[in-house]
C-alpha cells in the first residue's frame, strides 16, 4: 500500500537520511520508533506529500490519505464540530444534515459528543488528540499516518487513544503508519515495528520479536541503555 524506495532528505546540506526504503502492506499497521531528531516525522511528512524528498520515490496506492499531526493542527478558528464538517465539505463534498449526522457519529465514536460548539483551545489535550483522530478519519482514508499520537498524554489517556486507533483501524480496514517513542503503545498499535536511527532503518519484526530481540541497537533503544551502537543523532 505504501512503498518508499531509496528516499533521502537533507536540510542545509546535511543528510538526515539516505537510501531509506519501507513497505507497508494493505491492512497492515507499521510503527516507526527511533530517537528524536532522527527524521521520523520528516519521513512521515514525505509520505504524506507535504515535503518533497531530495532523492528516491514514494508511492501510495490510494489518493485518500489521513494524517494526525504531532500538534494536532486543529483549525483554531473553527469549533469542534466545524473541524469535522470542513474536511467533509472539501473532500467528500458533503454538506447539510448528512454531514452533521456523520460528524456527530464520529464525535460519539471518539467520545467527544457534547463538545460540538466548543473551540479546540477550550478542550483538554487528550480531547484535542481525539478530535485530531476524528478529523483524520472522517474522510474515510485508506491510509492513515499518525505522528506521535500519544506524546504528552498521561498513561491512561495514551492507552485509551492507542486502543481507539486500533479499533478504528480494524473497523475501517485501513493501512496504518505510526511514529511514536512510547514502546508500550508501539506494541499495542503495531503489527510490525521498525527502528529509524542514524539514518538507518532496522526492521524489528512483530511486537513479540521486538521484545525478545538480540539486535544491539534495538535493545539499546528499547531499554534506554547508555552504551551501544547508537551515539550521535541522539538529541
Amino acid at each position: 500500500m505504501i512503498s518508499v524506495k531509496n528516499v533521502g532528505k537533507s536540510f542545509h546540506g546535511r543528510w538526515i537520511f539516505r537510501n531509506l526504503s519501507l513497505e507497508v502492506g494493505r491492512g497492515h499497521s507499521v510503527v516507526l520508533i527511533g530517537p528524536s531528531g532522527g527524521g521520523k516525522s520528516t519521513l512521515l511528512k514525505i509520505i504524506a506529500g507535504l515535503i518533497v524528498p531530495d532523492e528516491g520515490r514514494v508511492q501510495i496506492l490510494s489518493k485518500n490519505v489521513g494524517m494526525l499531526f504531532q500538534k494536532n493542527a486543529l483549525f483554531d478558528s473553527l469549533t469542534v464540530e466545524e473541524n469535522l464538517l470542513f474536511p467533509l465539505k472539501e473532500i467528500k463534498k458533503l454538506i447539510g444534515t448528512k454531514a452533521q449526522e456523520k460528524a456527530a457519529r464520529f464525535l460519539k465514536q471518539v467520545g467527544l459528543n457534547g463538545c460540538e460548539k466548543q473551540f479546540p483551545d477550550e478542550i483538554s489535550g487528550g480531547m484535542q488528540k481525539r478530535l485530531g483522530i476524528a478529523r483524520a478519519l472522517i474522510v474515510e482514508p485508506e491510509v492513515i499516518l499518525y505522528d506521535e499520537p500519544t506524546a504528552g498524554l498521561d498513561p491512561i489517556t495514551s492507552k485509551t487513544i492507542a486502543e481507539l486507533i486500533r479499533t478504528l483501524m480494524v473497523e475501517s480496514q485501513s493501512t496504518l503508519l505510526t511514529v511514536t517513542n512510547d514502546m508500550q503503545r508501539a506494541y499495542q498499535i503495531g503489527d510490525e515495528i521498525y527502528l529509524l536511527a542514524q539514518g538507518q532503518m532496522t526492521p524489528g519484526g512483530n511486537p513479540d520479536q521486538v521484545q525478545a530481540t538480540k539486535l544491539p541497537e534495538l535493545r539499546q533503544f528499547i531499554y534506554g541503555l547508555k552504551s551501544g551502537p547508537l551515539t550521535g543523532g541522539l538529541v
Partner: protein
Amino acid sequence: MTEVRMWLSIVRLFFQTIFNFFQPSAWRRAEIIHAIVQSGIKSIPIVCLSTAFAGVVVTQQIAWHMDLSLHDVSMIPGFTGQFIFRELGIAIPALLLVSKVGASITAEVGTMKVTEQIDALKLLRIDPIEYLVFPRFIAGIVSGACLTLLAVAVTLSCSALVGILGYNFGALEFLNGMKHFIGVADVVCALVKGVTFGSLIPIVSCAYGFHCKGGAQGVGTATTQAVVSATVAIIILDFLITYFFTWFL
C-alpha cells in the same frame, strides 16, 4: 541577503495569488466576505477616528504656516484639500492598516504554519494560497479602495469644520475653494494608491506568515518583520506613484 530572498518570495506569492483570479474554485464567497469584514469593516472605527484627528491637526498647521508666510489664510481650503486628497488622507490609513490588518494576518497565518494547520490544509488537498491568501487579497483591494475614500472624506470634513469654526469660512465657500483645486486625476491617484496599498498588505503579511518558523517566538518575529517591510514598501511605492502622477497633476 535573506531580505532579498524574502522580497523575491513576496513577488512570487503575488503572482501565484493573481493566478487564482482565473480559478473558479478560488472564489470562496464565505471566506472573502469574512476577510472583508475582518480587514475592512472592523477597521472603519480606527480609520475614522485617527484621520479625523489628523485632519484637524494638519489644517491648523497649514493655516499657521500660511499666516506666517503669506499673511493670508484665504488659500486654506484649496491647500488642505489638495494635501489631504493626495497624501495625508491616504498615507495615514495605509500605515494604520499595516499595523492593524497586516500584523493580525501575519500572526494568524504564522500561527497556522507553526501549529501545522497549513500542512493539514494541504493534506485536505486545499491550496493554502487559494484558501488563505486570495480571499484576503480580494478583501485588501476592496477595503483599500473603500477605506481610502472614507478616510479622505472624513479628513476633508474635519478640515472643513476647522476652517468654518476656526477661520470664519462659510461652509459653501470652503467647499468651493476645495473643489477648485481637486480634479479627476486626484481621485484616480487616491484610488490607485488605496488599491495598491490595500493589496500589498495581505501579500506581504501572508508571505511572512508562511515563512514563519519555530513556535511563539517565530510568530512574534515574523509579525514584526512583516509590519516593518510593509511600512517601508508603502512609503517607497507612495513616492513612486506620487512621482508618476506629477506628470498628470
